[in-house]
């Protein structure tokens, strides 16, 4: 893999100028109404887009193919296979989606392209979470964990190091984001839950679940431990070895005492746990809570005083495009612009995820939908998901409120710690205990 690294480097410096020129040329263009020769030439191009189940969808692919005139081939992969693909076979991918739990892997790899800001049309309209590293009101957010601004910009066109200060080179285009918190079964909990600390309250022993992983489960546990007064951290999103040891030892103690019911690895397991009543309090993804509710089972997604755990998904182009067929690269940029331009964003917005360009969404969503999903307004009519299923009845209000109510208090972000190597080892001990 080091071979790759050096290759990437040399190629990068060589291609720099060329890419900038091309970027400038295309960035000023418009989406529709390309000259016919371009459409003719591009119709044979097939772009491979790999991503998670949230970001790759046949309906979206179909629409993209219709709108763009070249072919988008989407492949849904689980996160491990996806990152493995990017790391070992980057040339087999053109566009890829990944979240902040993976951002640590791309530094100094030369796998991803440095996307010129100029080639992405909606950067100006993108929420400041990504562009500036602040909330909408300009206040800075928590920098514990992989906060968006920590991995939004490349330091330079070589695409090796991240920069926390804005540059002209994007690591990825933010697609969707949200904030997760604890979900409860209000019908089954012994008392009201207001703090992450309740997660380790003995009232819930044997009825809680944590995500099985060091990127989500550990920060959740850390927030809860701190809230319960059992631990203090310098940075929960990037612990020291001592902090890791203490945390894992505490967790092992709790596990042995039977505090955990289960650990989930995927969305569906968390839904099953909650819906079946196996678990009454757990950290879960927002749509999972919604999913439980659509099954007619009460499930509350709690605003907690320590704040939520934020996450985002970037869409990136692969570095090999810069040195390959220019037409292909143009198509990729075109596609990535398309992805945030409307259809796709509306599609996932109506499932409860936030788009990084809410204004564009507002223009294309019905007032009721936008009001419900983004503004925290009571639904004026039934809220229907993109599959035609009624998600909420008229009058319902999204729990957690508006976009900025929900995203405005992020306590920690999904992370990949510097001590990941050590953490994984200790997490294994925890699993084995």
């Amino acid at each position: 893999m080091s071979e790759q690294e050096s290759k990437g480097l040399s190629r990068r410096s060589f291609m720099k100028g060329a890419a900038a020129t091309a970027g400038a040329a295309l960035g000023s263009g418009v989406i529709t109404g390309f000259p016919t020769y371009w459409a003719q030439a591009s119709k044979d191009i097939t772009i491979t887009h790999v991503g998670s189940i949230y970001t790759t969808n046949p309906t979206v692919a179909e629409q993209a193919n219709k709108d763009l005139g070249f072919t988008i081939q989407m492949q849904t992969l689980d996160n491990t296979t996806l990152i493995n693909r990017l790391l070992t076979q980057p040339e087999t991918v053109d566009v890829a989606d990944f979240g902040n739990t993976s951002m640590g892997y791309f530094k100094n790899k030369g796998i991803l392209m440095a996307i010129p800001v100029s080639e992405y049309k909606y950067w100006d309209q993108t929420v400041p979470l990504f562009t500036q590293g602040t909330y909408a009101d300009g206040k800075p957010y928590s920098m514990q964990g992989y906060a968006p601004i920590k991995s939004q910009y490349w330091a330079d066109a070589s695409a090796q190091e991240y920069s926390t200060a804005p540059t002209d080179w994007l690591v990825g285009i933010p697609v969707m984001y949200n904030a997760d918190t604890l979900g409860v079964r209000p019908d089954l909990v012994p008392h009201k839950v207001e703090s992450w600390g309740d997660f380790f309250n003995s009232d819930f022993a044997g009825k809680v679940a944590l995500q099985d992983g060091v990127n989500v489960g550990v920060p959740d546990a850390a927030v809860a431990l701190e809230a319960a007064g059992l631990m203090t951290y310098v940075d929960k999103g990037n612990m020291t070895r001592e902090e890791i040891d203490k945390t894992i030892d505490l967790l092992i103690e709790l596990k042995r005492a039977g505090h955990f019911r289960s650990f989930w690895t995927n969305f569906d397991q968390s839904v099953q746990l909650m819906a079946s009543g196996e678990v009454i309090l757990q950290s879960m993804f927002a749509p999972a809570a919604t999913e439980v509710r659509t099954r007619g089972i009460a499930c509350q997604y709690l605003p907690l005083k320590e704040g939520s755990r934020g996450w985002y998904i970037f869409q990136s182009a692969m570095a090999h495009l810069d040195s390959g067929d220019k037409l292909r690269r143009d198509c990729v940029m075109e596609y990535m612009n398309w992805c945030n331009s409307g259809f796709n964003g509306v599609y996932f917005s109506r499932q409860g995820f936030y788009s990084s360009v809410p204004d564009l969404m507002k223009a294309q969503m019905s007032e009721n939908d936008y009001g419900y999903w983004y503004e925290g307004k009571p639904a004026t009519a039934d809220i229907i998901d993109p599959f035609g299923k009624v998600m909420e009845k008229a009058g319902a209000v999204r729990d957690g409120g508006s976009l900025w109510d929900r995203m405005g208090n992020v306590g920690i972000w999904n992370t990949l710690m510097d001590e990941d190597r050590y953490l994984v080892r200790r997490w294994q001990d925890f699993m084995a205990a």
Partner: protein
Amino acid sequence: MGTKRTTSFYVLSFVFAAFLIFLYGPMFCVYLLSFQGPEGGMSFPMRGFSTVWFETLFTAGGRGVGDIHNSFIRSLRLGAIVALLTMLIGLAVGMSFRRRYPGGNFVFYSAIVSMIVPGIFVGFGISLTLNMLGMRPQWWYSGIGAQLTWSLPFAMLIMFIILGRMDKSYEEAATDLGANSFQRFQYVILPLILPGVIGMFMAGFTSSYEEAARAGLNIGTGNTMPMELTGLLGAATTPVMFAVGTLTTLFMFTMVIVTLLASWSLAKRRQLRLTAHHA
């Protein structure tokens, strides 16, 4: 044996029935929950009874359906090719073992190793190797190759069973009658081992259809069925999953029945032809 049934027969029948119930317990959930009502979820209780999840499955862009249709077709295509290659290569290696030869042990134990190495490592190792060679994985070579490492050892074992039980004197008789090795194979060995050859095909298909750990990293850009299902399980799932389970089981069931009927009618026709000759 024409003796009377003993008590143990009834006890064992009961045990076997209980085992079948145990085997079908989760399957029963799959079959039943695939008819879950539109408001129902992935677990009991049943909230009504409907075929809405089957309809969803056949609606383009249906919720939780993903790219199941194409991945199913890909799986069938991959399975058919893997099955064919498993059959041919398995047949060849089986024939090679009819005599002792230097290196035979290596061949045999490499198959044993392949059977017991965790699939994820074979898959990862292959992808690492391809990467070092600068090759792009494609379903039609690395995908198939990765799956062959799983299906071939079983084919080899099947060949051992069949060829070992075949009486050598048939072949010797054919040689005496002047058949060369090719004719011997075509007219004597092949007809005798045909059930085993079909067995290898079936084993090849089934192992490919179920396999994801090895193929996962080496399949290229199109998901197979198990990969797609694993991917879909990462997000909101609906009883569509169970509808898929019910339908694929039905599909496999039909395939097997059709194969059986076909081979049965083939045998019948052969019988008829033979009797016609003799009449």
